């Protein structure tokens, strides 16, 4: 399946003749009118076992404790931390698309920013679970908050765990506000189109009485731009803090100043891969082929390609720094990565993150949806492997040889590897069913700008 460029003018994002009424009808119709949601129900049923497994895993961890993980005194971190980094990385791209691309006036964000923001909300919510369930006593996670208590205890502000707590909390609440601000005008549209009493009330409450007066739009736009300007440093700081979780330690392979920026780019990389996959799904499932076009996939593929080059350079700088430091521990860790028990995984990581995305140099590959899907899935797997190998390799090859152990995955590890993927799909499907998945007012604005040009 490949996409043809729009014939009239290749610079335009939307097909010519897109009207305000047409955009509104195409996005609002599936939500409000009676429609067969057969594909949707099949997808929901498919995700339910994963949701149940995640919930069962959570109950098990709170009931039994961290012994259910495959961790031990050597491999003190495992799937929980790798998944935390992976999921918060997925969440990164939504904010970057809505914030960075808004500030740089990239028109192609208009059709994809809404569901990319929703992706951020769900991914960050899931990411937030992992630091809690990796704690020895997860039921006491609220001790991370500073509040006057009878034990006269206060948080240890020098601990990376505290930084994680505040960065996830701030990032999640900030993302909800940003997403909701964009939703308000579209909720007003749905309020005015809804025929059922429930629909009118539901979207009426969400719209807060929005009517789109000139001053409303002015305030709305000013706030949206200001939040975007705050979102970019916020998202970089959040993932830098995730990088500091490792870099603030003294372990070989972790104590590297390159970790914060390298984590930010890695997060953007896997996040864009997820956006491509979701865009493919949304386009196919909701018949939005006119709004998510060849130009969108082309632009996202170029972002992915750029990130692939930066990631490759980051890996190369890790190897170089290890060799250049002359430290035995650092050098032998790199040798362990290539020759230790995890070498097949490390090879896959390099294949998926560095070699396969080079396909996107070819314009034909950037327009071929199957090719994009394969590269994106590869990147998502590759980036997960990167995070788990950062943990397994360093912890499994510490300075003390007698402590070295290989990690063995337990049932809980497997559950939390795959379960949250289904939970994420479940939440995203609910969102696609009940909310406008494309930002209608921004597409109208884009169509107006393209008609005027």
């Amino acid at each position: 399946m490949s996409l043809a460029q729009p014939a009239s003018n290749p610079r335009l994002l939307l097909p010519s003749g897109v009207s305000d009424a047409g955009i509104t009808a195409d996005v609002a119709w599936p939500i409000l009118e009676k429609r067969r949601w057969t594909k949707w129900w099949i997808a929901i049923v498919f995700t339910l076992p994963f949701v149940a497994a995640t919930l069962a895993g959570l109950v098990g961890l709170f009931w039994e404790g961290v012994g259910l993980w495959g961790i031990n005194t050597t491999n003190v971190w495992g799937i929980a931390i790798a998944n935390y980094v992976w999921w918060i990385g997925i969440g990164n791209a939504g904010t970057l698309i809505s914030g960075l691309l808004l500030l740089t006036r990239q028109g192609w964000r208009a059709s994809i920013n809404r569901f990319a923001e929703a992706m951020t909300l769900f991914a960050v919510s899931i990411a937030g679970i992992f630091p809690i369930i990796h704690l020895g006593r997860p039921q006491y996670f609220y001790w991370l908050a500073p509040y006057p208590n009878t034990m006269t205890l206060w948080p240890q502000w020098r601990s990376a765990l505290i930084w994680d707590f505040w960065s996830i909390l701030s990032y999640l609440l900030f993302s909800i506000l940003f997403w909701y601000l964009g939703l308000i005008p579209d909720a007003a549209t749905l309020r005015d189109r809804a025929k059922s009493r429930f629909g009118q009330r539901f979207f009426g409450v969400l719209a807060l009485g929005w009517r789109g007066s000139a001053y409303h739009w002015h305030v709305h736009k000013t706030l949206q731009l200001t939040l975007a300007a705050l979102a970019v440093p916020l998202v970089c700081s959040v993932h830098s803090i995730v990088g500091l979780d490792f870099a603030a330690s003294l372990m070989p392979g972790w104590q590297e100043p390159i970790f914060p920026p390298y984590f930010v780019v890695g997060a953007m990389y896997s996040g864009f891969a997820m956006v491509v996959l979701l865009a493919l799904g949304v386009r196919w499932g909701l018949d939005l082929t006119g709004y998510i076009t060849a130009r969108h996939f082309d632009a996202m593929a170029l972002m992915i390609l750029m990130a692939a080059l930066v990631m490759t350079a980051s890996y190369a700088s890790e190897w170089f720094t290890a060799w250049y430091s002359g430290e035995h521990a650092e050098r032998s860790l790199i040798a362990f990565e290539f020759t230790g028990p995890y070498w097949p995984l490390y090879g896959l990581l390099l294949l998926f993150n560095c070699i396969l995305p080079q396909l996107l140099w070819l314009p034909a590959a950037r327009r071929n949806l199957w090719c994009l899907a394969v590269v994106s899935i590869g990147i998502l797997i590759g980036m997960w492997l990167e995070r788990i190998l950062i943990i397994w390799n360093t912890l499994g090859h510490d300075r003390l040889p007698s402590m070295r152990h290989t990690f063995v995955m337990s049932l809980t590890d497997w559950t939390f590897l795959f379960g949250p993927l289904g939970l994420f799909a479940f939440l995203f499907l609910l969102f696609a069913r009940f909310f406008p998945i494309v930002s209608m007012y921004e597409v109208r604005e884009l169509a107006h700008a393209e008609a005027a040009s």
Partner: protein
Amino acid sequence: MKALVVEFPSAPSVTKAAEQVRARGYPLLDAVTPYPLEPLLRLVGKRPAGVRTPMAVAGFSVAIAFYVLQYWTAVYAYPVNSGGRPLNSWPVFPLVPFEVGVLAAAVAGFAAFLVRCGLPRLNHPFFAAPNTARATQDRFYLLVDPLEDGKTAPLMALLFDAGALSVCETEG
């Protein structure tokens, strides 16, 4: 105050009409559109949005408050000697105030947005006009002063010449 709600089919027609209304010296009360139109805002009268100052004030003051909280708990309330580091570990202490400060700025910005726009509100006289059903979809509206009897006719002629579809009178 009464107002005339004039409906237009497209963005160019509403912008042209607003320009002509202003050029003839008639007051333009407001414009309601399904997406932001910068020229209309200028014609209606641009007032400052007033969200950035509250955001800056809230952001910086919450960030400072958090640094003070860290300082007081780490130096006085619960001092811990962590590997000989100074009790006031200033190189890492800005991390949490930054995160919380950005969040506080966002919350303050949203609150300012609601206050400045007069939201949330349950109803508005604009919605009572019978021709406003598509205001959030694909129709564009100008709100003009109805003027006294006898003076309205030339204004009406001007609006319909510019492409107006309908006119309704409303309170508000």
